[in-house]
């Protein structure tokens, strides 16, 4: 099982774009890790943050709550939130919750970077 406290991998693609890779679980237990990662990813110049869910094992309703929190924060900082790597199941959940209206959903990291940089 994934360590709930494990830090999330953050990569800066360009001065405008950063990626947070969410491996394992996304639940309320990882709130601190996700917020730390966002702090590390988003500088004053950052315009887009991509959440890569390729290695997501499990996300529950509290994880969806975290995405909403992150969205609120990104909006406030005038940053765009994108996501990629969802399985069909979680993509369906994003659609149901209408979070896909607010978060740009892409198949791969490359697609998301192209969208972010354009």
């Amino acid at each position: 099982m994934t360590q709930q406290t494990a830090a999330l991998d953050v990569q800066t693609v360009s001065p405008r774009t950063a990626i947070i890779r969410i491996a394992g679980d996304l639940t309320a237990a990882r709130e601190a890790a996700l917020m730390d990662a966002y702090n590390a990813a988003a500088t004053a110049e950052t315009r887009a943050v991509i959440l890569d869910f390729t290695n997501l094992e499990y996300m529950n309703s509290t994880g969806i709550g975290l995405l909403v929190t992150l969205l609120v924060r990104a909006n406030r900082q005038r940053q765009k939130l994108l996501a990629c790597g969802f399985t069909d199941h979680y993509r369906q959940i994003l659609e149901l919750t209408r979070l896909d209206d607010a978060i740009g959903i892409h198949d791969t990291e490359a697609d998301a970077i192209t969208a972010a940089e354009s």
Partner: protein
Amino acid sequence: MSTITQTVRRVLRRRPAAALEVDVDLEAVAGHEEFPPFDIAPDDPLLTYFAASAGAVQVDHLELDSPALRAMREAGVKVVVPLVSQGELIGLLNLGPRLSERDYSSDDRKLLEELATHAAPAIRVAQLVREQEAEARERERLQQELRVATLIQQQFLPKELPGLGGWQVAAYYQSAREVGGDFYDFIELPGDQVGIIVGDVTDKGVPAALVMATTHSLLRAEAPRLIEPGRVLERVNELLVDEMPPNMFVTCLYAVLDPATGRLRIANAGHNLPYVATADGPVELRARGLPLGLMAGMTYEEVQATLEPGEGMLLHSDGVAEAHNPEREMFGFPRLLDLVDRTLGGQELIDRILDELRAFTGAGWLQEDDITLVTLQRSSGAGHYDAGPATAAALTNGDAHELLAQFTVPSASGNERIVMDRVADALTGYDLDPARLERLKTAVAEATMNAMEHGNAYREDLPVAVRLYASETAVRVLITDHGGEGDIPEATTPDLEAKLAGLQSPRGWGLFLIQSMVDAVTTSHDGGRHTIELVLHTEGDSNASHPV
């Protein structure tokens, strides 16, 4: 004034735990020496005399046959002023001779009496504060001991029940406030057999928990090696006898079940008799044997039985039969036997026992002893299980539902994943579209989280019970918590805009998800327990939908 140094010593022995010595040094007035503290025996006539004295007493004028008086005179005490607060003698003000070698004048005595009048209540307050502090420390110590005992106890209870094909296994454990020494366990044995233990250590708290831990470890070590239940208990008894603290022993029932044939062998070290539910009525399985750890060289009779399809067994500790109602009547074994007669086994039997027990003891019952219940039931016929009247309403078109899994998990953060994975494992080989399985998993995880959080307030001692049934057309999952009568509120579509605007909590997606993922959600409650039932049809749209 001569040396005035006095020791005020609590001399009354009525509250020995609170014995208190207060030294009041009046060197500011005069004097340098201090009398040694006097121990005055509770039956010394001097005490009665001082208690009744109105003021300062001149020691040389007293005529009493009192060892304490002699000790005082030897120490040079000339005047004693009893310190009395609210009619109770709480200490003495002892004075030596005046430095001027003159006797104490009536003015001196008046001054001393006045001093005593003011000092006594203050000293009494100090004594009370110390007593209260000591009591608070004692309370904290007891609570700490309780926490340790609970921790040890929970460490040794099985985290999950064994999955036995063709059998329903259910268990319930609830510790009493003082934490008794109940334990139960399942041990994997060679040849796909399973060992089942239910035991009870006399005594409570940490000592009982430690003996329980030792017994448990010995049983776990010896059972797979020796197999035969009689020999296992014999060996464990030999090992325990030398280690057992005085006045303690362990009652223990050990059963070995071959799930394939229903063959059951039991040996019993003084524990409650197991009840077997047969088509002809309940039967007690009697096997002779004394509790473990009492005497060396014990042998344990072994008894065999076969559980036929549909038949079940109940193992139980004293906590149920010996529970009292407000009229001090005992629940008793006949009531238990009657329940076994009416319900053959499984979770349903446990639920009924607990319901009946609650009805018997009434509200506000303080559980006197740990309660442990373990039930086994062999599936009837071709492994089909009649879900019984409590759940029959959800059966679709009379379609027979097979019980695929039944287990409990403690209410601890993250355990919803255990439930989700076990449900998925149990459905391996079942013809369910992978996308629909994913939806069921999400709904099960969310419902379990709700049960742990809202029903059981994340109390680890309150388990969430899960039952999974499947038929050709549908899968049903029942998730039960201790949430009482409260209904699950209607799921409404969370307002994303309000959440993004900070007008609503970012959370609150659980119920919406549950209802979006499965085809039907119903809730029910029964005797303090709350159940959510999720139904997912095997055929249907693989896309999830918004709740209607």
